[in-house]
């Protein structure tokens, strides 16, 4: 394992901003929105201090931020932005255009509840609203992962078999504002890892003129969507390759599914983001009491790791899915995806859906324990959505 040269206690926002400084993208266009604000503030400071030679565009809205990075990426620049919640929602139109135009933009998202009523705290409704936009979604558990994934995302996005934008999700406030110890890589190491941007069809190549964003009617639109579907299929292969290379420079090896104490587990909980850490802790407590429990944290939500989950969940007694967002009138997004993955399993586990933490509501060990205890008692109903930490 490489020697740790740069261990610091920082907020997740600073960790992400530092990753952006080390990536040193050609263009960053951003608008500050809670809880992403410190990311942009730190980064703007780095640029002002000459620590990054990025063209920083302070725009008047997130719609413009995403539009500017789309333009920059089409021109051939390595372009980034960062956002959260209503900012992401305001980008929505251009979020689709970025993916459809196959522009490898990387965007950290400090996940936050969508209004209304107005709320600035963590939940996953912002990213879930973009789940079908064609972006790859990485999900970090802590500041370290937010830092690492931001760097890895560049390689993933720009890979020639993919060419898709990547959202690096990290829980608002919990990760963005919480202080943790983060191991940073040396600037030179990151620079070498991300390499020069791999540009395809740059608008600024005047010798080879191209058109971006033309009209694409019923004659070709479908074919272009099929290409996007295909690109998503390559993500896992490339992620594993990038993760392997990243392990060489960092000593930290990431898998598509972060499986904790799952090997012999009869009861498996699945969750995205920072709550997986609390679940791991709860799993430790329950293991001490003799319960065979484990937790799976998908590191990628889009594309959804269906095959990988099937491999891990076949034959388990019960699977409990925790969602930090709701889908009104339907099943919660992570649960729905897990449930549909398990349809073809030979030995289907019992399934339970739990929604928690909306608008920043605390998730406690007791809540997680309660969901596990429902499973131990055989009291899970696949078609019933339950709530953790909600007042009845």
């Amino acid at each position: 394992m490489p020697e740790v040269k740069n261990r610091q206690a920082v907020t997740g926002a600073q960790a992400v901003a530092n990753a952006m400084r080390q990536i040193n993208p050609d263009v960053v266009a951003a608008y500050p929105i809670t809880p992403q604000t410190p990311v942009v503030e730190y980064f703007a400071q780095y640029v002002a201090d000459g620590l990054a030679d990025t063209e920083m565009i302070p725009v008047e809205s997130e719609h413009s931020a995403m539009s500017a990075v789309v333009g920059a990426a089409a021109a051939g620049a390595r372009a980034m932005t960062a956002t959260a919640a209503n900012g992401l929602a305001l980008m929505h139109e251009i979020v689709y255009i970025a993916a459809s135009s196959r522009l490898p933009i990387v965007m950290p998202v400090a996940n936050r509840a969508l209004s209304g009523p107005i709320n600035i705290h963590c939940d996953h409704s912002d990213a879930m609203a973009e789940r079908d936009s064609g972006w790859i979604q990485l999900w970090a558990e802590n500041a370290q992962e937010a830092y690492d994934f931001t760097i890895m995302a560049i390689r993933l996005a720009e890979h020639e078999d993919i060419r898709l934008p990547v959202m690096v999700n990290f829980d608002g406030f919990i990760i963005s504002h919480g202080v943790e110890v983060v191991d940073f890589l040396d600037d030179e190491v990151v620079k070498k890892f991300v390499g020069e941007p791999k540009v395809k069809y740059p608008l600024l190549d005047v010798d080879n003129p191209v058109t971006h964003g033309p009209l694409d009617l019923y004659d070709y639109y479908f074919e272009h969507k099929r290409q996007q579907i295909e690109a998503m299929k390559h993500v896992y292969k490339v992620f594993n390759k990038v993760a392997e290379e990243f392990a060489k420079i960092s000593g930290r090896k990431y898998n598509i599914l972060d499986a904790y104490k799952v090997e012999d587990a009869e009861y498996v909980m699945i969750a995205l983001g920072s709550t997986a850490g609390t679940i791991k802790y709860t799993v430790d407590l329950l293991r001490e009491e003799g319960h065979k429990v484990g937790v799976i944290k998908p590191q990628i939500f889009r594309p959804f790791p269906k095959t990988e989950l099937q491999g891990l969940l076949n034959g388990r007694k019960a699977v409990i899915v925790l969602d930090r967002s709701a889908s009104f009138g339907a099943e919660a997004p992570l649960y729905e995806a897990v449930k549909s993955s398990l349809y073809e399993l030979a030995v289907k586990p019992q399934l339970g859906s739990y929604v928690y933490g909306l608008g920043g509501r605390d998730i406690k060990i007791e809540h997680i324990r309660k969901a596990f205890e429902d499973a131990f008692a055989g009291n899970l109903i696949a078609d019933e959505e339950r709530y953790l930490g909600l007042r009845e």
Partner: protein
Amino acid sequence: MAELKGWKEIPIGGVIDKPATAKEYQTGTWRVIRPVHQPENCIHCMMCWLYCPDQAIVIEVVDGKPKMKGYNYYYCKGCGLCANVCPKTNDKLPEEKRAIVMKPETEFQD
């Protein structure tokens, strides 16, 4: 229209990877009315050429001066703009005096 390609053959992201491909887009297949040039009434003012959105007016330069030579019907989509801007074409003139006459496309089908 040219043969349509499959999803594996086309550039990603809807990118058009070479210039001037609009030439291959034959807007003339849209046409339901056809402008017909009557050269005997034309004063070669080039108003039609200037306004045609599809560059469907054929011109030829004779002694340094442009001459209206009729239409490239592959591109003329029959919008009628040329007839509208032509100083030698209007409703008050009898058809035989107009420089441009708009005729139903059906008259030209074999």
